C-alpha cells in the first residue's frame, strides 16, 4: 500500500498540541532504552545507588569486561555469520518460490500458499523440543549451519508472502516484452523483475536479519559455548545470586545497536514490511 505521496515542502505543520502528543509518545518509547544505555556506562556502585543520577563520569569498563571475560567478540562474529547467511539464503529461496507462485499455475500451488501462510505464525516454543531432537540426530546441533537452517525455515513463509505481493504488481506484459526482445527466462527475471522487487527485498532482508540477529531461545538450545550467538550469551550474566547489571546492559546495547541503526537507515522499508499483507485493500 502506498500512502498518498506527500511533498515534504507542502505538508502542513501540525498544531502545537499535535506535536506535544507526538513528543510525549517519543519520550515514552525512547526513555527506557536510553536509561539502559546510560546504565551500561556506569560502575556497579553507581548502578546500585538507589538514587538515579544523570551526573557521573562515563566508563567503558563494562564493555571491556564483556569483551575480555565474556568472549563477546566470538559471539558477535557467530551472530554476524548466522544472520548474514540466513538473510542471504532466505532471500534467494524466497524470491524463487514467490516468483513461481505468482507467475505459474501448477498443481500444488494453492496448498503451498495456504501452508506458507499458516506456518508464518508457528510459535518458536513449539519448534524448540523437536528441532533439538532432530538436529541432534542429524549431527547438526551445536553447529552454526544448524541454527541457520532453522532461521531460514522460520523466515521463509513471511518472505514468500511479502515478495509474492510485490511480484504480482509487476505487469506480466513487461516480462513478455523482454522475452520477445530475446531475453531468456533468467535474463527476464534478472533484468526486469529483480530491479522492481528492490523495495520488497529490502523489507524482507531487514525482517530476516532482525529475527536471526535477535532470536534467543532456539539459539540458546541449539548452540554450545563455541557456537553461541550474542543474544544467547546474555544468560551468562543472570546468575542465582542476581544480575550483573553493568555487563548485561553493555551486552544488551551491543545486541540492540544493529537493529536500531537499521531502523534509522531504512524506516520506510520497515513500515512496508510491518503493514504488508494486512493493509492491502
Amino acid at each position, binding site marked *: 500500500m502506498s500512502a*498518498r505521496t506527500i511533498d515534504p515542502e507542502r*505538508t*502542513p*505543520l501540525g498544531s502545537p498540541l*499535535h506535536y506535544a*502528543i*507526538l513528543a510525549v*509518545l*517519543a519520550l*515514552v*518509547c*525512547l526513555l*527506557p*532504552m536510553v536509561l*539502559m544505555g546510560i*546504565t551500561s556506562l556506569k560502575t556497579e556502585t553507581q548502578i*546500585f545507588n538507589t*538514587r*538515579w543520577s544523570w551526573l557521573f563520569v562515563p566508563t567503558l569498563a563494562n564493555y571491556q569486561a564483556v569483551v575480555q571475560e565474556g568472549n563477546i567478540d566470538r559471539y558477535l562474529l557467530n551472530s554476524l555469520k548466522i544472520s548474514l547467511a540466513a538473510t542471504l*539464503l532466505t532471500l534467494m529461496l524466497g524470491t*524463487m518460490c514467490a*516468483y*513461481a507462485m505468482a507467475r*505459474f499455475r*501448477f498443481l500444488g500451488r494453492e496448498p503451498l500458499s495456504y*501452508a506458507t501462510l*499458516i*506456518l*508464518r*505464525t*508457528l*510459535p*518458536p516454543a*513449539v*519448534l*524448540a*523440543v*523437536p528441532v533439538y*531432537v532432530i538436529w541432534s540426530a542429524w549431527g547438526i546441533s551445536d553447529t552454526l549451519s544448524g541454527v541457520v*537452517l532453522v532461521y531460514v*525455515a*522460520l523466515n*521463509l*513463509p513471511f518472505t514468500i508472502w511479502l515478495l*509474492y505481493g510485490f511480484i504480482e504488481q509487476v505487469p506480466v506484459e513487461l516480462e513478455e516484452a523482454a522475452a520477445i526482445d530475446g531475453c531468456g527466462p533468467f535474463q527476464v527475471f534478472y533484468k526486469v523483475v529483480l530491479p522492481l522487487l528492490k523495495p520488497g527485498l529490502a523489507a524482507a532482508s531487514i525482517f530476516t536479519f*532482525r529475527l536471526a540477529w*535477535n532470536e*534467543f*531461545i532456539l539459539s540458546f538450545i541449539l548452540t554450545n559455548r563455541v557456537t553461541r550467538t550474542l*543474544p544467547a550469551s546474555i544468560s551468562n550474566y543472570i546468575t542465582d545470586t542476581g544480575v550483573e547489571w553493568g555487563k*548485561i546492559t553493555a551486552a*544488551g546495547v551491543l545486541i*540492540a545497536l544493529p*537493529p*536500531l541503526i537499521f531502523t534509522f537507515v531504512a524506516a520506510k522499508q520497515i*513500515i512496508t514490511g*510491518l503493514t504488508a*499483507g*494486512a*493493509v492491502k485493500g
Partner: protein
Amino acid sequence: MHVSIPSARLARLTPYVYIAPAVLVMLAGLVLPIADALRLSFYDWPMGTDWDSARWAGLEAFGEMLRSPQVWTSMGVTLAFVLIAVSCEMVLGVALALFLEQPVRGMRAFRTVFVLPMMIAPICVGLIWRYMFDANFGPVNQFMGFLGLAPQAWLADHRLAFAAMVVTDIWQWTPFVFIMVLAALQGMDHSIVEAARIDGANWWQQIVRVKLPVIKPILIVTLLMRMIDGFRGLEVIYVMTFGGPGQSTELFSLHIYKAAFVSQKLGYSAALSILLLAVVTVLSLAVLMMANPLKGERR
C-alpha cells in the same frame, strides 16, 4: 516454431524447480519438527536419555496435561495477558491514530522512533524492563518516589509482576497498532469522509459511522496478529521474570519451555506444544479469512 514434447515437459517442471529449495527447507525446519512433536507426544521420554529408553505412553501425556493445574494456570495467565494487553494496545493505538491522522511535517521521524521498541531484540526489551521495575534502583520506583508514592517490589509480587508484564507489552506493541491503523486511515478513500461531513456528520459520527467501519478488516487482522503474538511470546518474559513469582507471569510458551528444559519431560512438553499449535492455528485461520492475499484473484 515447433514445440518438442521434451521442452513442454520441461516447462511444466519449471515451477517445481523454483519452489523446491524453499519447500525442502520449510519441510525440514518446520513441518518435520511439527510431525515429530506429534510423535514425541505419545512417548514418555526424559531428556538426556537414549531414545531406546523412551516408553510408548499413548495418550497419557495429554491426560496429564488436561489434569495438570499448572497447565490451566499458565493458560489462564496467557489468556488474561492477551485479553488485557491487546485491548489496551488496540484502544490506545486506534485512539492515537485517529487523533494524529492528519499528515504533518516531521511525522516520518516520529514514526521511526515509534518502530524502535519492536525492532530491538525481545531479550533486550525484557532486560530493559527488568531494570526499570527493579525494586531497589529501578527508575519506575524512583518516579513513584518523585510523585510521593511508596516504592513497590514490582517483580516479586504476583499481581504487580503481571501488571509489569502487561505494561512492557503495551510499551513494545502499541506503536504497531498505531502504525497499522494510521496506514489504513491515510490510505482510505477520503471522499467518503468528505461526503459524510457535507451531510452533516460531526467528528464523532465520522469516526464511528465511517472511518472505523471502512478500516474494520485491518483492525481485525491487527487484533488477531497481536493475539497470536501473545501466545507465541516467550523471550521477553524469560529474561524479565522467568514466569515468576510462582506462575504469575508464566505465559504458555514459557510453560512449554520449562516442561522440556527444566522438568526435562520431552514427550509431555511435545503434548503441550500440540495444544499451543492448535490455539495458534485457529487464530491464524481467522487471519486468513480476513486478509487472504490470494482472495482477489480467485474471485
